[in-house]
């Protein structure tokens, strides 16, 4: 009897813990969701309710420019859609480039013995540690001179550079896990080094590649400091930066509803991506390759 009651207590305790953590983490998210369904009158009220009294999709209509838009918000929706396009474009291109370069670099680091290997790795780490803010000034000047200011490449290049080190470290750890014999077997079977890499090593490192891709994408998607400093118009401004321009007509009354809606809209792709890729990020893909 004593053991069963202890087991029950354990289960109850575990669930209480889960609930506390979930509430702690999700409460702000739920608050934002709830805000996004409130009308402007309700958000401006003195003592707001947690749930909307009067559910409305007007905020979504305003921000995405669908259906009847509240007068005065026409520019907001255009700007937001432009920013969303910029965010997607910049994040996807930066991710692709970063993963491709990191895969090649990590493979070389994991497989080849060359002078200065440690130096390359520690330099990469140093770059990852470097505070982004310290680079804003120099980059601003440099980009203006090179005519990269307020362009997509102007953001893609720094995003790629800042995420490469992490991607290289992640991927080289994955490559090191893959037994040499896999590649040698492929070579004996008649593969060139490139074929062995493409047909055997990359598929085996797929979990690592996806991990690196997701981390890179998140960084580029969420980044604010560079996005606000190196852009001036909606030609290249991304969503996090664009949100700071949502001020509304009254400076003392920011459009909380619209801000919350925009936040929800930019969070959705992230959630979808994580759900899509989490199946890919399964450990133990290499199980069965060698003796078990």
């Amino acid at each position, binding site marked *: 009897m004593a053991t069963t009651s202890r087991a029950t207590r354990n289960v109850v305790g575990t669930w209480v813990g889960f609930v506390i953590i979930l509430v702690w983490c999700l409460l702000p998210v739920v608050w934002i969701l709830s805000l996004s369904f409130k009308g402007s009158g309700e958000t401006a009220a003195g003592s707001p309710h947690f749930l909307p009294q009067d559910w409305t999709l007007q905020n979504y209509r305003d921000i995405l420019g669908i259906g009847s838009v509240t007068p005065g918000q026409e520019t907001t929706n255009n700007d937001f859609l432009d920013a969303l396009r910029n965010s997607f474009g910049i994040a996807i291109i930066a991710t692709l480039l970063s993963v491709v370069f990191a895969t090649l670099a990590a493979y070389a680091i994991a497989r080849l013995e060359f002078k200065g290997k440690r130096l390359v790795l520690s330099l990469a780490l140093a770059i990852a540690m470097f505070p982004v803010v310290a680079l804003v000034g120099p980059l601003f000047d440099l980009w203006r001179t090179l005519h990269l200011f307020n362009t997509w490449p102007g953001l893609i290049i720094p995003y790629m550079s800042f995420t490469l080190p992490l991607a290289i470290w992640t991927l080289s750890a994955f490559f090191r896990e893959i037994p040499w014999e896999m590649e040698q*077997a492929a070579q*004996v079977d008649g*593969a060139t080094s490139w074929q062995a890499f493409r047909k055997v090593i990359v598929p*085996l490192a*797929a979990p690592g590649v996806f991990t690196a891709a997701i981390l890179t994408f998140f960084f580029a998607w969420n980044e604010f400091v560079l996005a606000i400093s190196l852009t001036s118009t909606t030609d290249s401004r991304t969503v996090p930066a664009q949100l700071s321009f949502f001020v509304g007509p009254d400076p003392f009354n920011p459009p909380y509803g619209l801000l919350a809606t925009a936040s929800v809209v930019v969070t959705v792709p992230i959630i979808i991506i994580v759900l899509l890729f989490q199946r890919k990020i399964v450990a133990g893909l290499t199980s069965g390759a060698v*003796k078990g």
Partner: protein
Amino acid sequence: MASIDMKNIVKQYGDGFPAVNDVSIDVQDGEFMILVGPSGCGKSTLLRMIVGLEDITSGDMMIGDKRVNDLAPRDRNLAMVFQNYALYPHLTVYENIAFPLRLAKAPDAEVDEKVRAASKTLELDEHLERKPGNLSGGQRQRVAMGRAIVREADAFLFDEPLSNLDAKLRGQMRTEISRLQKRLGITTVYVTHDQTEAMTLGDRVAVLKRGVLQQLATPRELYENPGNLFVAGFIGSPPMNFLPATVEGTSVKLPFGTVELPREKAEKAAGKGLLMAGIRPEHFEDASVKTEKASGSTFTAKVEVVEWLGNETYAYIPFEAPPEVEEQLRQLERDLDGESLHTQLVVSLDGASRITEGEEAEIWVDGSKMHLFDPATGENLTVDHEHAGRIPSATEGAPA
């Protein structure tokens, strides 16, 4: 199909250490050649040099009549089974076997036909759509072999393919490999440290020690005419006994007594001072069980431990060795990866023997099967060169 001819192959690492030193082995077309030796003897390195995964420092590697030293592995047309199988975990068994054909851009119909044929041979039909991760050790082993046989390669190379299997499966797979090789009649080089595999599988066996070829001969020749102390100690289980010995006329003085030796053997060893006598355990017998003792001698010794196995009995008899012999024996133990604490004689007696522990037993020994070794060089003085295959250090002069 092709022969593989290794001529004076040397592998030197960056620090100058020769992992393989001046090894010459000729593998005939269709022959099953075994490379055997304790760990670190360079057998795997040699195999990897054949397939092209290691650079050759000097010497010529000939496959057929083509020098392949500078060819990439993919251009050598060899098939290899790795120790840990090296299957591609992201591909099904079917695609694993088909991998070499796909690389060669074979048409789908041909791929299918060859894969089905290989899987039939290896009884993998019901596993074709599974991933290697879901297979047992023996099944993985067969997939690895399947990947080798679809290739129609010039030769098969095996790198300790059975060392990851349990004892029972190992025996089965050993027979399987032997059958497959005989049926396909393909040139095979097989690396192992297991002497049972070496003796049972090989047409010829190359024994290596620290990168140097010790002897290249058929299993029987190795067993009956070991070229030196190392080969004698390596081949056979339980191993050959080594005893300090001095030859006087046709009799050999051993720690336990004097044993008569055939004249021709005695002559070869005459006047060399202290020697080492090598006698296999089965050349002893319990004198009370042995009925006809025509050719042997007998001696009495105190038996320390007896292990009765049913069909035979192992008896252990400790002895004291002079320092120079003891030193040589310890060195031999180290070479063989062994760890023997004291010098003892292991004798294999008939299962009917009633000798008990602690007893002073009368033991019969067949002196004609005895070998005498030079303790300084380890060379077998009584070797019958007609039936000993090739012993590089004895017949071709000691290597540098």
